[in-house]
């Protein structure tokens, strides 16, 4: 049965999903009482919600659509470049998480973390503002990519024009972001479950249509079909070689950008601030890796199986279209609807998190940091943040009308840039007391400049260039200047902080001790 050319199953599944989203958002909005609740869940998040939100944030359209697309295009090499790269990033995260969540009075955002660690006494922290600007640009691109992914899926499966579909996405995105971190985390946990169910359905459909793994690998071993109809043929067997059509230098560049770059991405550092304590933060990332395994098995199967079902894409379609095309062609209506919901869930769960990061960096770390006088009005600040998120959501949709990048590669560029500039300030800041302000400035500025120049000049591994020069600049900066004050590093190295460190942290957060006592009581409950 069809309505406006679309199966009724799609409407039922979609309506059910929207109702559940609205309910979880409404419930979680009640939880938001303070600015810390809005930005990091009040630093009191438990393990289940933490794992749910981490899984759903990891699984974006870049993974759900981009990874099958690259598997289709280059074969198993994409497992090294993206799947293993992202898993290695998540594998390093417990080590970082254990340190980031140590302070008794933690920062609310990543730029504030940089400020507390490197410029604790600055009235206006230039470093905080520089980091926030870099974050703003990066997360705006991430958000834009999620909108593009959603538009492609909706257009392919429903026939609704891409330009209209992305505006529908805006409404869902804004609703799930307005409640802040709790809303994002709650909807993310639901989305993580839906992603797994939807992809499992999609994988079953592909295995049924292809005849199983034996047939899929036999096809990969012999297929020479071009990516697009009329394009150059692939060498036989290249889809099963570890370096694929990339070559090792380029593939290692992608692997390193995704692994090392993603591990220090600001939204992950922000995630590590949300759990109740350091151990919860470690366990959150460990169980996230375990939960991601079945999801990526589904994605790998769908991507590799697609090469057998649809040897070449129609002219003008990028490999990002492979997932919706396969679902549309080979899955029964209900399975197709569930897979569509999985992709939608992946796009929403990542986009709302990115939108929150983007809005927070713009409002909290740039606008508010430039106005250092006066105590913070929590109520007004939360509303201002909501307006910022709303405006940025609209801008990201407008920017997606003419999409310029392949989804997975767009993520790799941003992760590479984040890694090149933030890797050493984050790692050395957490594990080396001597790391200081000059080192952080040098590392961040040299890292981002070197990455952009190397990328512009067509270097095969711009991340390696950026991070190597960033390390050299950081070390020169550190050894040419004096050691940092204890207020800068103490919270990350000692179980208890001194009264002066405590006073500095409260001053940066613009809280008095009463506000912090309330926060601690909530955490204990």
């Amino acid at each position, binding site marked *: 049965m069809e309505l406006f050319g679309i199966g009724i199953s799609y409407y039922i599944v979609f309506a059910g999903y929207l109702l559940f989203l609205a309910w979880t958002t409404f419930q979680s909005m009640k939880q938001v009482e303070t600015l810390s609740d809005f930005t990091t869940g009040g630093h009191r998040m438990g393990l289940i919600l933490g794992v749910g939100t981490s899984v759903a944030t990891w699984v974006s359209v870049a993974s759900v659509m981009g990874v099958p697309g690259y598997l289709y295009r280059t074969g198993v090499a994409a*497992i090294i470049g993206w799947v293993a790269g992202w898993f*290695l990033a998540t594998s*390093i995260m417990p080590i970082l998480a254990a340190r980031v969540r140590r302070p008794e009075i933690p920062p609310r955002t990543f730029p504030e973390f940089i400020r507390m660690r490197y410029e604790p006494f600055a009235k206006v922290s230039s470093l905080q503002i520089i980091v926030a600007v870099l974050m703003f640009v990066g997360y705006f691109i991430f958000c834009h990519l999620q909108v593009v992914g959603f538009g492609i899926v909706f257009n392919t499966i429903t026939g609704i024009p891409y330009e209209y579909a992305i505006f529908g996405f805006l409404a869902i995105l804004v609703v799930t972001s307005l409640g802040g971190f709790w809303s994002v985390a709650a909807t993310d946990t639901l989305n993580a479950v839906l992603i797994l169910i939807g992809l499992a359905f999609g994988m079953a459909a592909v295995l049924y249509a292809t005849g199983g793994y034996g047939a899929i690998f036999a096809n990969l071993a012999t297929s020479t079909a071009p990516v697009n109809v009329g394009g150059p043929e692939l060498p036989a067997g290249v889809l099963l070689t570890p370096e694929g059509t990339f070559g090792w230098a380029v593939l290692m560049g992608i692997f390193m950008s995704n692994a090392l770059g993603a591990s220090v991405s600001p939204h992950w550092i922000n995630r590590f601030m949300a759990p109740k304590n350091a151990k919860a933060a470690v366990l959150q990332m460990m169980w996230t890796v375990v939960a991601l395994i079945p999801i990526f098995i589904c994605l790998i199967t769908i991507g590799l199986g697609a090469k057998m079902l649809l040897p070449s894409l129609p002219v003008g379609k990028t490999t990002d279209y492979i997932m919706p095309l396969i679902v549309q062609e080979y899955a029964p209506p209900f399975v197709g609807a569930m897979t569509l919901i999985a992709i939608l869930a992946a796009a929403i769960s990542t986009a709302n998190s990115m939108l929150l990061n983007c809005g927070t960096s713009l409002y909290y770390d740039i606008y508010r940091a430039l106005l250092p006088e006066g105590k913070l009005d929590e109520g007004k600040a939360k509303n201002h943040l909501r307006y910022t998120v709303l405006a940025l959501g609209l801008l990201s949709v407008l920017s997606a009308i003419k999409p310029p990048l392949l989804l997975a590669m767009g993520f790799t560029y941003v992760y590479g840039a984040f890694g090149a500039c933030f890797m050493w300030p984050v790692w050395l800041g957490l594990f080396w007391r001597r790391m200081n302000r000059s080192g952080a400035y040098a590392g961040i500025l040299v890292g981002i400049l070197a990455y952009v120049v190397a990328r512009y000049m067509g270097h095969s591994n711009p991340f390696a260039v950026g991070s190597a020069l960033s390390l050299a600049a950081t070390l020169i900066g550190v050894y040419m200047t004096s050691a940092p004050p204890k207020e800068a590093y103490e919270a990350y190295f000692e179980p208890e902080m001194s009264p002066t460190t405590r006073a500095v942290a409260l001053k940066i957060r613009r809280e008095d001790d009463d506000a912090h006592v309330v926060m601690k009581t909530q955490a204990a409950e």
Partner: protein
Amino acid sequence: MLIALLFWAGSIAFCVGASLICCKQIEASGVRRWGACGQLFFYE
């Protein structure tokens, strides 16, 4: 294919190992505010 899967499996093994070490360190510190509770995979 095997090399690609080894990259992936290695990442997963590294994660579990690193998490185990981090949890052990937190337990060894005995700091309850960090989550030490006497059990390796639970937190206060």
